[in-house]
């Protein structure tokens, strides 16, 4: 799925109006390894996750392993009644979140004796399936959280991942509304923000992230992003051949609104069904235009002020 940063019928920002906008845009839209433009010379290959939800058994080992390794606080007992998901979603105290979706959809010969009448409003044959999927920070190629961080607490590592430096973050909270996936959040008691670090500390010594290591079924696959993308392509083909027509990759394309995710997924339904945005776009793609309009607006203010004095010298 490709998506342009521009809303149809809108012209790209031209130079002049806001000097530097183009060079800024250049960086904001660049393809390839984001570490290059982040000042890393001869860095390791970009590392990431391929989370294949078709292999997930919803065990939540990833959630627990993450909390244990990163000493993330337990965040309260609330029973949601949302299938087996009592975690809710990613946040300051949840860096891996396993979603559970119970669906009445046709599942072909799978479970021939498990025919549930289709849910209201949906036609088609009976059937039922239970989707499980482990969500995590996407480590975007073009990461809004990182772009907007005024302190440099958020930074791009040599592995191409996006990490909060807890000794720097001053809790300005800007990254929170900036993330198009609603991942990063503020730990109110602490004042700072937290999210998946892709186990930056472990990567540093060549160790696999805790969540991926624990995953009993390899639903979470960690590795060099390039290899993962190849493997994922093959996997989708394999599933399509097996008749799993709605298997699709999410966040793997460098052409999407965030330049591709460092942590991408194989889904069996539309992204929003899993609580993911169908076409996320990094907000800073529009920033040059914003700066241009800010410039124009600022000028307008001066003009307006001038006008209000026009011919009033007494």
């Amino acid at each position: 799925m490709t998506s342009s940063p521009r809303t149809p019928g809108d012209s790209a920002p031209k130079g002049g109006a806001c000097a530097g906008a183009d060079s800024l845009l250049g960086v904001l839209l660049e393809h390839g390894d984001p570490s290059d433009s982040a000042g890393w010379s001869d860095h390791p290959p970009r590392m990431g996750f391929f989370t294949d939800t078709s292999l997930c058994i919803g065990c939540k080992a990833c959630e627990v392993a993450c909390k244990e390794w990163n000493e993330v606080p337990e965040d309260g007992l609330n029973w949601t009644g949302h299938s087996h998901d009592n975690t809710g979603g990613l946040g300051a105290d949840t860096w891996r979140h396993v979603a559970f979706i119970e669906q009445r959809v046709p599942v072909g010969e799978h479970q021939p004796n498990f025919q549930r009448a289709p849910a209201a409003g949906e036609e088609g044959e009976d059937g039922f399936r239970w989707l499980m999927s482990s969500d995590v920070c996407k480590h975007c190629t073009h990461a809004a959280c990182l772009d907007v961080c005024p302190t440099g607490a958020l930074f791009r590592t040599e592995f191409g991942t996006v990490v909060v430096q807890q000794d720097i973050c001053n809790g300005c909270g800007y990254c929170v509304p900036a993330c198009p996936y609603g991942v990063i959040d503020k730990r109110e008691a602490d004042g700072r923000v937290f999210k998946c670090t892709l186990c930056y500390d472990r990567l540093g010594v060549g160790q696999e992230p805790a969540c991926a290591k624990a995953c009993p079924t390899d639903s979470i696959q960690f590795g060099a992003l390039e290899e993962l993308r190849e493997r994922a392509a093959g996997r989708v083909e394999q599933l399509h051949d097996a008749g799993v027509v709605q298997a699709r990759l999410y966040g793997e394309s460098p052409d999407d609104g965030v330049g591709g995710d460092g942590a991408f997924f194989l889904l069996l339904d539309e992204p929003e069904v899993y609580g993911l945005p169908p076409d996320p776009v990094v907000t800073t793609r529009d920033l040059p235009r914003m700066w241009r309009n800010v410039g124009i607006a600022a000028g307008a203010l001066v003009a307006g002020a001038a006008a209000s004095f026009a011919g009033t010298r007494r």
Partner: protein
Amino acid sequence: MSTEGTDRANDVAPKDDEERAGESHGSEAQVTREGLEGVRPGREARTWSHEGSGQGRRTRRSPRKRRREEAFSSYYGRPVVKEATWQAMDIAGYFFLGGLAGASSVLAAGAQLTGRPRLARPLKLGAAGAIHLSLIALIHDLGRPARFLNMLRVFKPTSPMSVGVWVLFAYAPAATAAALGELTGTGELDRRVRPIADAGTAGAAMLGPAVASYTAALVANTATPAWHEGHREMPFVFVSSAASAAAGLGLLGAPLAQNGPAVRLAMIGAAGELTAVKLLERRVGIVAETYHEGRAGKLMRTAEALTAGAVAGALVLGRRNRLGAALSGAALLAASACTRFGIFEAGLASARDPKYTVQPQRDRLSENAA
């Protein structure tokens, strides 16, 4: 044991196996005397493996698939993006005060140039006061206020907050100097202060427009639908709202004799704000609901009413009646504040409901597809 049995089994067994092999694909792997052969990693497991196979389900999929794209679906109605964790008082307040300060500095400079000291005076004092309050609000909102200065570690053009902070660090002293000039008398020392104050006035006037407008980029540069979708119009909403605030301050503080420009700026600002907000609401599509409903709706409507009232008041009484001018001024300030708080609340509301995140993206996808 008897051979009969074996023989019998012998001639049936292989046939059985052929039949069996036909019926179901078993494992492709085998355990030979050499060991495991044809092994595949578990991550290639065929899950949902019978989906659509042979049963022609695949063909039947597409229509219902389209249906689902149309129908808005979410994960138990949970938000897709996170609401800003900002406190309204701090951040909306900081937008309002920043706008007030920036625009006031511009208007003040004009007043000074055109010899309207008693219009300039309240504007300079107001600008200085406002900018310090806005800085306090900003710091107060930090999770770790003690680390405010970390903002000066870097300069990031990709971060309106970073850019803004640097601008503020230049602007605040200037505005302060300008204000100090207003507090000086005729003494020897005062004479020496004046040039600094004038420089301050000039500097504040030059940075004022930036101060008044960058916060528009700050809110718009987020994934919050009500803010981001309106990123083109937001700067105009912000400056015009700032202009009317400054005008309001002028009307409030200046004598009838010198408040003419304030009255005119009030007209310009109000007109600008009303149109810009309308354009923004048109642009953001269904997300506009968040500007009309709930707290945001109330605030936006109040702002509109106040502005209208203030403009009328200024036109009729602005130059004749000190009290009327003052009231219109106060109304303009209130209107500007309501606009900022309204926009702030609309943002939170739009982040809370996944519909406003998913629907526009879905529409965009189908448009791109078409």
